[in-house]
């Protein structure tokens, strides 16, 4: 339970009404992002002090309705019924009252301590909004405040009203009627439950109504009751009766009644389209970006520019971070050696811990810059159009239009690509996209291809590398089909998406969003990456006294033991086994490891010494087989850590290790053995 010295406010509303903007204005950067207990839906909370009161604001998931048909949709009603918030603020778009009021009606049915924040965009709307607020407030019997979600002054006004509201009676006293027939059935259900249990009137109303609508959460509650069977029969009978009278199904009946009420209300309101200008601009942009012929090329140009910009801009920053940790390690080594600390401890600190922290922070620029672009696309309204444009293609391979963005980003780095699956709405789409993401060949794998293709196929280097990227895509599509068929049998989510009017994202909102992503990565995935790094370090350093990562180290020993697994693939030498093992740490490390193991200190991709060394252990065929294996095998631990974070379970990252290993081994086997059969060497 929340202590009452701290006020609890819940923020709710339809998508695209300015709810997040209001949340950001209210709480500033003091936000906490987590997950709703046991769910993959993100939970955002923020705290603020107002007039000596501590207020906790919870940002509830955006939704069009309160009726829950899936577990995830129960969050808002659960929150209102179980957490007893002091105030529920519904953010309502002044431009789109009718649809927004549908949820208002449901919030009133639920008996929520409701305040409506009528969000208007720009001054011209002020006059009409004020008039409408007054009318709405009279009809609905709840406070209605006109706000500009971006401005602190108007949110302060909202908080003032919230504080005043707390001292008064909760909820609207408005009594909604649903017509004689529905009311009659509702009363019967109410009477039945009332005879079995003593509930207050408000709760009884809500329970009966939701039972009639077939609400998931309510059904879950009553299945545990001893009178469940009897009640279920009663409800089913009522439903059948009503559906027969209206000749419509129950949802349609309720929607019709509620919208009927809203229509009546709307007649009283001043509906005036003062925002013709933005509508026109939106229209103009849409004509271009959703054009039948230009839409896709334009999108590809945008996404490729983002791709280029992200990796171009982040590369020097990543270099700085790497250099910084490199010199820090060097400095510490010298310092600690001079104080006489054992070589082993120094190695733990420098190679294990500092190397690990550096390995986490090196991803920060790429994530920050990438999310800068993603937030801009999302907040401006373009992302919804992308889903529209790409849906026709992605649909064919069973994915949602938006998944395309994640997959493209994966070519740069799988980590932000997987993080970007958040923009997908359903769990099924998210999971499927995450599972095939590792086959998008990331930037860190490229140096391996460059080195090997250069060493063995110098004349066709470009084509060889290109073939690997294509192979990755083909494997992703094939596995996508397999997973869809056997693993994720949930029905594909129907494609319904709102296209909000375009607007310029607020700087504040963008910065908060980027900070959130970066912090989530550091705090959640980062700790896992650090732990893995220390394990890898231990494998490379034990038993005590061996050269780091040498043949005598644990890693070297394991490498020799497992190398027979790779023999049928053409690279049974222990060095490649160790390199692959360290590649799990980060794919960048593979070449460096080869360098260390062959005793070539200065490693770069044109290094002649390393190439000569490799040519002794590999043939062109086994080199290609090795590249294919690097392309497809277990993604780096940063990816696994992010998958764990995004799916909220260890099951999926473990499964990922499993199927990627099998796919990589099989593909490399087919290529090596098949190649030998047709006479390559």
């Amino acid at each position: 339970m929340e202590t009452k010295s701290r006020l609890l406010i819940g923020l709710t509303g339809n998508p695209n009404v300015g709810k997040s903007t209001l949340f950001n204005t209210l709480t500033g950067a003091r936000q906490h992002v987590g997950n709703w207990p046991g769910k993959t839906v993100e939970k955002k909370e923020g705290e603020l002090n107002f007039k000596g009161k501590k207020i906790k604001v919870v940002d509830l998931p955006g939704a069009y309705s309160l009726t829950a048909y899936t577990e995830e949709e129960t969050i808002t009603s659960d929150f209102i019924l179980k957490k007893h918030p002091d105030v529920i603020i519904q953010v309502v778009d002044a431009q789109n009252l009718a649809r927004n009021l549908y949820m208002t009606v449901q919030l009133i049915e639920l008996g929520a301590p409701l305040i409506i924040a009528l969000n208007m965009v720009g001054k011209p709307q002020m006059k009409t909004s004020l008039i409408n607020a007054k009318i709405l407030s009279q009809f609905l019997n709840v406070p209605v405040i006109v706000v500009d979600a971006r401005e602190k002054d108007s949110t302060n006004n909202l908080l003032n009203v919230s504080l005043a509201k707390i001292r008064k009676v909760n909820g609207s006293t408005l009594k909604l009627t649903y017509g004689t027939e529905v009311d009659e059935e509702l009363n019967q259900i109410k009477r039945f439950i009332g005879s079995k249990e003593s509930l207050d009137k408000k709760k009884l109303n809500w329970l009966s109504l939701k039972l009639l609508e077939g609400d998931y959460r309510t059904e879950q509650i009553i299945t545990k009751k001893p009178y469940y069977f009897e009640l279920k029969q009663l409800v089913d009978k009522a439903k059948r009766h009503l559906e027969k009278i209206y000749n419509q199904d129950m949802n349609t009946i309720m929607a019709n009644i509620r919208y009927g009420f809203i229509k009546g209300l709307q007649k009283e309101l001043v509906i005036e389209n003062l925002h013709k200008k933005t509508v026109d601009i939106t229209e103009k942009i849409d004509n271009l970006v959703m054009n039948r012929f230009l839409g896709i090329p334009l999108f590809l140009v945008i996404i490729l520019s983002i791709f280029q910009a992200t990796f171009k801009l982040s590369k020097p920053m990543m270099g700085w971070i790497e250099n910084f940790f490199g010199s820090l390690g060097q400095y510490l080594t010298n310092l600690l050696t001079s104080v006489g600390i054992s070589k082993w401890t120094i190695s733990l600190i420098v190679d294990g811990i500092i190397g690990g922290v550096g390995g986490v922070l090196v991803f920060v620029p790429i994530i920050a810059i990438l999310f800068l672009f993603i937030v801009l696309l999302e907040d401006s309204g373009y992302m919804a159009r992308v889903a529209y444009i790409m849906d026709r293609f992605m649909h064919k391979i069973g994915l949602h239009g938006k998944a395309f963005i994640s997959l493209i980003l994966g070519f740069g780095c799988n980590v932000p690509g997987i993080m970007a699956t958040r923009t997908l709405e359903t769990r099924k789409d998210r999971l499927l996209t995450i599972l095939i993401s590792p086959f998008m060949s990331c930037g860190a794998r490229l140096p391996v291809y460059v080195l090997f293709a250069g060493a063995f196929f110098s004349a066709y280097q470009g084509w060889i590398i290109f073939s690997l990227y294509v192979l990755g895509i083909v494997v992703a599509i094939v596995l996508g089909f397999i997973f869809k068929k056997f693993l994720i049998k949930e029905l594909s989510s129907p494609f319904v998406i709102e296209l909000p009017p375009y607007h310029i994202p607020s700087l504040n909102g963008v910065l908060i969003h980027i900070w959130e992503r970066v912090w989530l990565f550091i705090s959640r995935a980062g700790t896992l990456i650090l732990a893995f790094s220390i394990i890898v370090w231990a494998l490379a350093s034990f038993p005590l006294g061996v050269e780091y990562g040498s043949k005598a180290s644990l890693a070297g020993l394991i490498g020799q033991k497992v190398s027979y697994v790779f023999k049928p693939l053409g690279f049974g030498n222990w060095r490649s086994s160790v390199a692959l093992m360290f590649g799990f740490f980060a794919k960048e490390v593979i070449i460096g490891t080869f360098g260390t193991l062959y005793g070539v200190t200065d490693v770069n991709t044109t290094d002649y010494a390393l190439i000569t060394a490799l040519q002794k252990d590999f043939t062109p065929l086994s080199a290609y087989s090795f590249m294919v294996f690097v392309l497809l095998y277990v993604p780096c631990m940063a990816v696994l850590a992010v998958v764990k974070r995004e799916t909220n379970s260890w099951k999926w990252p473990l499964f990922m290790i499993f199927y990627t290993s099998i796919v990589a081994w099989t593909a490399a086997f087919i290529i090596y053995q098949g190649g030998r059969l047709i006479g390559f060497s």
Partner: protein
Amino acid sequence: MKNLTEFNKSDNIKICYVSCGQNFRRRLSELGLFDGAEIEIIKNDRWGPIIVKIFESKIALGRGEALKVYGNKI
């Protein structure tokens, strides 16, 4: 009575029947698309999703989904 993919841009339509499963039907009715509702077709290319205007918002609807919604031109 025709399904939504058979109408043209700027047609105003009164929905008369939504033939699909309960879950999708209620998603549509939450958005304001249910029997008796009036909508406008904003965009209907020969392939890909179609875009309709429901109340003041533009909603993109997958082609497969639009096939299940029937209405009459007003």
